[in-house]
């Protein structure tokens, strides 16, 4: 409860990012995900940290333009981070690349940044689900395994697996919404 109130305060007073304590709370809440996005996009830890740093710098400069009525801090930071990643990708594209040095998760035309971002968000949300829910969604949908196979492996009836899929999807929706997702990304 106290944590939630601290978060709420950070949400409201983000215009006050100049305050190091507010900045630190915002960092603790969101930097991990921003770093994951940058790292998966650029495939390089050092550059990913530079992206997070630049994101916070831009957020700090533009804090007075943040409107809590229009977006959560998270979606706001994501939007900034996305721009920084795009800038960083462009900067890299303009430099010659050695063969075989391209990391696997770099956004390419067939896998644009938006899609990569959604994937990362879903993965983050799946990590926050209960083990029970996560296992059925991953095994059945992502690993394309049959319900009966998964049921046998878990030692539960097929009906229970299906019911966990249903409740798992509902839980996933709630977690995604808590993370600022509204089904339109």
């Amino acid at each position, binding site marked *: 409860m106290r944590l939630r109130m601290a978060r709420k305060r950070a949400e409201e007073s983000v215009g006050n990012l100049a305050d190091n304590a507010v900045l630190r709370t915002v960092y603790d809440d969101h930097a991990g995900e921003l770093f*994951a996005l940058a790292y998966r996009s650029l495939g390089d830890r050092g550059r990913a940290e530079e992206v997070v*740093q630049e994101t916070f710098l831009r957020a700090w400069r533009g804090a007075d333009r943040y409107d809590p009525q229009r977006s959560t801090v998270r979606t706001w930071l994501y939007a900034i981070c996305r721009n920084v990643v795009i800038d960083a990708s462009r900067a890299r594209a303009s430099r010659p690349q050695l063969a075989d040095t391209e990391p696997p998760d770099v956004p390419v035309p067939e896998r644009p940044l938006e899609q990569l971002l959604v994937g990362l968000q879903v993965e983050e949300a799946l990590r926050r689900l209960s083990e029970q829910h996560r296992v059925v969604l991953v095994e059945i949908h*992502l690993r394309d395994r049959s*319900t009966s196979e998964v049921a046998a492996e878990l030692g539960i009836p097929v009906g229970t697996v299906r019911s966990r899929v*249903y409740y798992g*999807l509902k839980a996933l*929706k709630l977690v995604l919404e808590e993370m600022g997702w509204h089904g339109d990304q």
Partner: protein
Amino acid sequence: MTSDRCRQMHTLLGMYALGRLDDHEAVAVRAHLDGCADCRAELNQLTPVASVLGQADPDRLLEPPPAPSPALPGTILATLDRERSRQRHRRVAVVAAAAVTALGLLTGGFFLRTLVPSTPPGQPVAFTAPAAGVEASARVENRAWGTGISLDVTGLPEGSTYNVWLQRPDGSRMNAGSFIAGGDRKMSMNLAVALPMSDATMLGVSAPGDDTAILQAPLHS
């Protein structure tokens, strides 16, 4: 109204939304949906989630999520501190420039160069005898929270990790963070150490697990 039939149907709706029912079962679900607005509404809730679920990578889920180095928040705070002082300088420079313009109208403007200084923050330190091919430069800055360090390094083996530290007079060290060298690419970083600059005698870089300094620069505070 949720009937027993609907409750039963719910068990199938998740699988249906994911497109994982066989044809026979899918037909039964559709037949129920046609006559049940509640279940249709329920399905509408699930469909967008089901459609993005497939974009997750199950293998990445097994890996621990990548985390930034613990030194990053310090680096960000140090950068913001520098940005703040730069803004202050800019304000001072604007006022100074206005004064110069006013003065310049009177005197011909030869004060301009002396009144608007453009020194980067911090004081430079010199690295002693770096290995062949290694270039490094650094500036250190005394801050209210400790010491800010900006470090540029080129020529250390690409992909190797290095620690950056400040050394006290008694030889003990305080970690300032770590970085991954980029070979010929220049690595520029800002680091923060919770050690007042006056308490440090040396800035150094070494490989993890090896105390030998690969780069070192004495501090004259």
